């Protein structure tokens, strides 16, 4: 077995040195009728050629985003990731290291986390950010818990523009913890009355911008009403590139900003692993979940970094911890920070302009298609269309023409009267040919 250095001779020498006759003597604590004497009746070991063939066969049964005109978004986005990013992420010293608990020999990880935290704080317009969460959805659920700790209340109000999966994760968690949740109806046109939901019992309001349907949302009035009632505003995003073009949630008064960072540095990966971004105001930092890296000095007075404020965490606080999380999304955060360092302010803003320009082009083209109505008046790189017919069937028909033409809203909100809606995303990878192909195919299937 290529991964196991011990040989049979080594093994027998070692057993003798330990003073036992057989390997199973070391498993003596296992109830003996339950100890398996033979390998399970499952396939035997395989060499690289066979493994690559077996997995390659599975991979070939999927349609990769890069192999077709591709307009699927709704929480995960196809962007170009520079080759440098994946090369660096695969450095042994990043890939095969553990959580940086020994700072003397983990400064590499710690420094990039410190840089990552700063980038996230700058992007979101907040004071501080943590070293990442599992993803945007679990981060949102953690943000709600944090708001409950800060306000000592337990009722969350979820906007109807929040990604339906995110809302479902919050509801599941709240049910288990015995907290209250109010979910507003699906809000395609960003016209919901969220202000009237906020009162002195509200812990937090969760609003996504751009929302699930693509509408950028002005948070200022919501923030004001929240603060007047002692509640927190949690701003959520699923497309982090939008922060290069849109006013930051921090500038609009959000108390916690949380979202999905996949778009920068990370592949689609069929939904994971991704990287949750989480930022807040300095005054709430001790209620923030997740790992935090901080700057300090070593015994020689040189700058260095350590994990800090860890008394919030489960390994010290146990059942009083702020969260049960003990992992961040280290390598995905590394990919994010490398890609964002390469982009810089100039590159990110340009990337955002290209995304927006491409989406505007597509919206204009679709507006001329009979049976298609573009619903958004404003959007970033994603918008919702109403089609004459069942959206799910239309998207399937497009797929048979090798066009991945967006997400039918009914897939995430079944039975909610959204059967004729499709959410379409456009990024820098989409070409004029892609858009023309989509429009032509839509004309055929409608």
């Amino acid at each position: 077995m290529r991964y196991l250095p011990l040989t049979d001779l080594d093994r027998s020498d070692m057993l003798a040195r330990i003073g036992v006759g057989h390997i199973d003597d070391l498993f003596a604590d296992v109830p003996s009728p339950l100890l398996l004497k033979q390998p399970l009746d499952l396939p035997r070991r395989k060499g690289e050629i066979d493994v690559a063939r077996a997995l390659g066969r599975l991979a070939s049964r999927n349609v990769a985003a890069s192999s077709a005109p591709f307009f699927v978004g709704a929480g995960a986005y196809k962007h170009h990731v520079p080759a440098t990013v994946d090369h660096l992420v695969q450095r042994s010293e990043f890939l095969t290291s553990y959580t940086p608990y020994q700072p003397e020999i983990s400064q590499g990880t710690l420094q990039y986390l410190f840089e990552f935290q700063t980038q996230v704080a700058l992007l979101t317009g907040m004071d501080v950010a943590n070293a990442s969460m599992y993803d945007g959805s679990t981060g949102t659920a953690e943000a709600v818990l944090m708001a409950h700790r800060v306000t000592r209340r337990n009722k969350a109000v979820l906007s109807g523009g929040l990604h339906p999966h995110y809302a479902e994760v919050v509801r599941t968690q709240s049910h288990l913890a015995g907290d209250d949740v109010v979910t507003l109806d699906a809000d395609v046109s960003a016209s919901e009355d969220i202000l009237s939901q906020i009162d002195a019992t509200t812990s937090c309001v969760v609003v996504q911008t751009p929302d699930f349907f693509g509408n950028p949302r002005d948070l200022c009035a919501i923030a004001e009403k929240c603060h007047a009632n002692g509640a927190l505003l949690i701003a959520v995003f699923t497309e982090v590139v939008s922060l290069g073009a849109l006013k930051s949630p921090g500038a609009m008064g959000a108390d916690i900003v949380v979202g999905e960072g996949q778009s920068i540095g990370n592949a689609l990966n069929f939904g994971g692993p991704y990287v949750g971004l989480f930022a807040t105001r300095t005054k709430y930092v001790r209620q923030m979940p997740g790992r935090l890296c901080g700057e300090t000095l070593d015994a020689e007075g040189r700058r260095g970094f350590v994990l800090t404020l860890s008394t919030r965490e489960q390994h010290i606080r146990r059942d009083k911890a702020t969260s049960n999380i003990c992992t961040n999304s280290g390598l995905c955060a590394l990919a994010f920070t490398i890609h964002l360092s390469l982009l810089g302010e100039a590159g990110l803003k340009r990337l955002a302009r290209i995304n927006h320009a491409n989406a505007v082009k597509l919206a204009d083209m679709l507006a001329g298609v009979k049976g298609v109505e573009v619903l958004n008046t404003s959007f970033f790189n994603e918008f919702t269309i109403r089609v004459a017919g069942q959206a799910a069937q239309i998207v399937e028909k497009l797929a048979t023409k090798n066009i991945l033409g967006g997400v039918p809203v009914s897939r995430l909100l079944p039975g909610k009267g959204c059967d004729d809606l499709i959410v379409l995303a456009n990024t820098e990878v989409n070409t004029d040919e892609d858009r023309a192909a989509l429009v032509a195919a839509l004309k055929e299937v409608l």
Partner: protein
Amino acid sequence: MLNNQGRPTAPKKLGAHEGKTFSGHRGLLMEEALIFETGRIDATGVDLDEPAAFTPRLGTLAREEEIGLPGLSEPETMRHYVRLSQKNYAIDSGLYPLGSCTMKHNPRLNESMARLPGFADIHPLQPQSTVQGALALIEELAGWLMALTNMEAVAMSPKAGAHGEYCGMAAIKAAIEAKGEGATRRVVLVPESAHGTNPATAAAIGFEVRSVPAGEDGNVHPQAVRALMGPDVAGIMLTNPNTCGLFERQIVEIAQIIHEGGGYFYCDGANFNAIVGKVRPGDLGIDAMHINLHKTFSTPHGGGGPGSGPVVLSSRLAPFAPVPFVRRNGDHLALVEDKVGTQALGRLTAFHGQMGMFVRALSYILSHGADGLKQASEDAVLNANYVRARLADLMSLPFGNRPCMHEVLFDDTWLKDTGVTTLDFAKAMIDEGYHPMTMYFPLVVHGAMLIEPTESESLASLELFIMTLRDLAMSALRGETARFEGAPFLAPRKRLDETRAARAPVLRWTKPEPIVDAQAAE
């Protein structure tokens, strides 16, 4: 004529260098500034064409303020992160005996498989007809996990071990509520030796934690469980093999007590890597167990994630598994994404789980096969016992010199009166080129040192590690404290001031105040 030009080709004498340099670099060890100190607001390492003029449709919310992000060209980026990487210890560079963390070899085949466009470049919401291979991969991995554990079902979506614990305990709560006992069964039993995530998870789901004392022998005893079991108990969270590196000898009896009392048995599967192919958790009476794919099946730790924590479930809990799950209809695989019409406990994450980790784990499992997985467990246990046997004469074993599983636990009794602490001893290992073992965990042992060598170490590598630890131990016992106090001396940084970091936290870079020349200002 003789040509006497050129350099000397053998060293003449050993020079001296006090270690101070102008640049701050020390030979190959480079100091590296922050990107905020070297980057520029107008620099970029990505070439993108400005779009043709168009009318934006951002409404009133276009960004006007500066973000403040520095940019780097590609060569600067490469050098920055390569230099940072060189300040990290890694499995690929040395033995990483971090107990309970399972720092084993990360095969690169798994990395290349995960990067196949058919896996890495597919969207979680594209039509299911276009991702049948991905669903088949999830089904195949799930099949392996169920077979290796002899369990009825597996929830694949949890994002990491702690998230898996959350999923398993949520399933238990859902099962209890379905029986109408939600209001009465509110207590979860957790041994003192448990990972901190266990009580944190139980509390997050609204359970009250009741602590089970550990026995003198490092095991949890049935009588201790029986004494705490009652109609208010929802279940137990037990780690097996436990955090002392021991198999819970009476786990079957404990499971019986819990089941007879109407509770459920959650097993923390963090140490499953010791017993894969040797014993199946389902045969022990377990109702739910998470599997850390990043430990047992070697998807890389990546400096602290991403992990992946599928949860296997017994038939009693299977109906409550969260959405989504894969359902087979003949040749077609479908994702069940909506809980309506099911007993699912809800949804724990957007989309379908850590697909990138599933590919790596399946690649690892197929490479090993049933025979290789069993051999890997045996080698992990053999290596740990070899370390135990070779150090037992110098270092103290809190539960006697009995066989351990994949990790061996020492305490600090043997360091008493040497002036050397567990921390000093571990930090001195860094100077010797080793990552320290896990320290001060589990909490049930004083000054704990938990060593997990894994199956990835050759006998020669283990020998050098053991001889190094023996040399350090004898040095400590001789009272040579100078080697330990303030160690490490040879790492990129000396000990860091954690008190300073926590008292006045600096959690991000901020632009330094401009230096004002006081005299010029006057």
